[in-house]
């Protein structure tokens, strides 16, 4: 391990040999890194293509009706995906509507308001929520949360909000407890740790001089958060939100316990429904016929496409925000 000897050798070899060996190593490293990146893209493309190939019979047989029909009949082999698509989108939307403000509140609390001794423990507690397996959330949802919803919350919603003309249809229905609202709330609880931890990490990275100059100018805490912290961190915040949304879209086990697995289209949030991931998980092993299997794979492809679209929209939105603000 004699560094002096190594330096002597390095100095004594010709400059050209040193340069070419270094360049070769650099070239190899570039190839490996590019290879790794392309490998991911290739795997993604192969997944999409294989799902497209296996789902093609269903698309060919049902055409556009597959996206707007509500029947799912394995006996007569008539399949249409509106109910699972609607369920996936609605539960994820409810989850994000609840999770984003709550996570924002948690992040602001932990970075601005909480006393320093409290920040560590509370942050750890919230991140522990992320470690709980999703099937535990499903079981907790079914055994604890569903009775709570059906005894207290659903009847209240049905009685008070169900009568409002227009949007009342969203909130009326028998208080089963299982349904899209319950599933949305359980998903929100699962998603909050991810979104809040990203937000908190990135809020704490705002340079103190920047925040302090806001305070110095007489801004209130909320004004500093809104006008200094958020614009500085918006890319990461949007990234965190879409990370949470991605999890909510694909969540299977927790949703299948509390959503009700009913292939019925209903406008009410209190009604049971179905989601793409839950439908595939429930029915795939017993899908005996080719058309049934193909319909389920087509559903999977739809989820893939929906996730892809959502993430692309996020990217586009970020690009536009960057362009507008000139950064």
């Amino acid at each position, binding site marked *: 391990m004699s560094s002096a000897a190594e330096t002597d050798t390095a100095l004594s070899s010709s400059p050209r040999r040193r340069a070419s060996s270094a360049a070769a190593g650099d070239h190899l490293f570039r190839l490996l890194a590019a290879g790794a990146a392309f490998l991911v893209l290739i795997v993604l493309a192969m997944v999409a293509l294989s799902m497209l190939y296996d789902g093609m019979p269903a698309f060919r047989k049902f055409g556009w009706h597959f996206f707007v029909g509500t029947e799912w009949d394995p006996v007569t082999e008539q399949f249409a995906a509106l109910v699972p698509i609607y369920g996936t989108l609605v539960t994820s939307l409810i989850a994000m509507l609840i999770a984003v403000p709550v996570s924002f509140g948690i992040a602001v609390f932990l970075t601005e308001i909480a006393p320093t001794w409290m920040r560590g423990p509370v942050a750890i507690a919230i991140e522990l929520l992320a470690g709980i397996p999703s099937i535990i959330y499903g079981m907790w949802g079914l055994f604890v949360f569903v009775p709570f919803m059906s005894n207290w919350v659903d009847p209240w919603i049905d009685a008070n909000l169900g009568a409002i003309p227009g949007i009342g249809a969203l909130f009326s229905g028998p208080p*089963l407890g299982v349904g899209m609202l319950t599933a949305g709330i359980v998903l929100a609880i699962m998603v909050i740790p991810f979104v809040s931890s990203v937000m908190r990490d990135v809020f704490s990275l705002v340079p103190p001089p920047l925040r302090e100059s806001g305070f110095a100018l007489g801004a209130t805490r909320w004004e500093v958060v809104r006008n200094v912290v958020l614009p500085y961190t918006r890319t990461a915040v949007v990234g965190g939100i879409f990370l949470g949304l991605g999890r909510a879209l694909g969540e299977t086990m927790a949703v299948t316990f509390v959503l009700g697995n009913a292939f019925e289209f209903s406008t009410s949030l209190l009604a049971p429904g179905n989601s793409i991931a839950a439908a595939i998980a429930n029915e795939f092993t017993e899908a005996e016929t080719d058309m049934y299997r193909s319909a389920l794979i087509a559903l999977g492809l739809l989820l893939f496409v929906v996730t892809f679209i959502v993430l692309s929209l996020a990217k586009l939105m970020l690009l536009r925000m960057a362009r507008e603000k000139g950064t």
Partner: protein
Amino acid sequence: MKLSRGLLAIAVAGLIGVTQVPAQAQQQITGAGSTFVYPVLSRWAADYAKESNLQVNYQAIGSGGGIAQIKAGTVDFGATDKPLSPDELNAAGLAQFPLVIGGIVPVLNVTGIKAGELKLDGPALAGIFLGKIKEWNDPALARLNPGVKLPHERISVVHRSDGSGTTFNFVNYLSKISPEWKEKVGEGTSVAWPTGVGGKGNAGVAAYVQRLKGAIGYVEYAYVIQNKMTWTALVNAAGTTVKPSAESFQQAAATADWSNAKDFDLVMTNAPGKDAYPLAATVFILMYKQPKDAARAKTALGFFRYALDKGQQAAKELDYVPFPDSVVKQIEAYWQASIHAM
């Protein structure tokens, strides 16, 4: 340097040591399919492993999965709750025989109704699951149950969300006794339920029924006993009100016309006997008529002979119902005739 060399030596020694473990001289057969039969099959496998040297490896992936695996030849036997027709069996070169009986029981969660208090008949059950009978104090139900106080509660139907042989037998019964059900919904391991929520597996249905007020669902008999659920009595084809029990299931098996069923292609629902339970169901084993490995097939048949004979006690302990002797003889004769492994 010394430490890493030492670690390397230990790792190499460990690898060599692992490969020196003597290979166990244990035979193995594999099967896949119905979840209905899984509890008793794994108990039989454990008991049989003690007296023979056979390890039975069973994957409870559902009847549809079992059929697919045996057709693909990746397992030695498949288990299905839904029998294949003789044409389908011939096309695939498969033999089929029944193994054990269970029952499907409607369970409820209605305020004030205790286990066994309520009585339902086929048309009432069909009406409930079609969504036409919506409340528990509906006149159709009150007529069947004079003297029982039926509350003014909405009926919440619970069915299976996953494809299942239990569902198949249940909707098969409904199709037999209700032309409207047969036309609107039909039968299969997965159907388009007109109403209700879906639970995953028997456990899911049981959980939903216990949690939703006014719920009715259908689960296997073993579940009802082990979870002490509120079951209903049913009116059978002969007009008798029967309770779910080993005796009424066995009556259904005895009166079912097995001798005339080619390849045992018979679903036991709505059995004609006087005390027969209308929702008795059986699990079928599928094996190749000309197995690629005759020795493995023979070993498998040895296991099934054990199950049909000495395994009866274990089956009863797990709330399954063994076949009567007449049917067991018929099954063994079928093996001699159809499966070329003896």
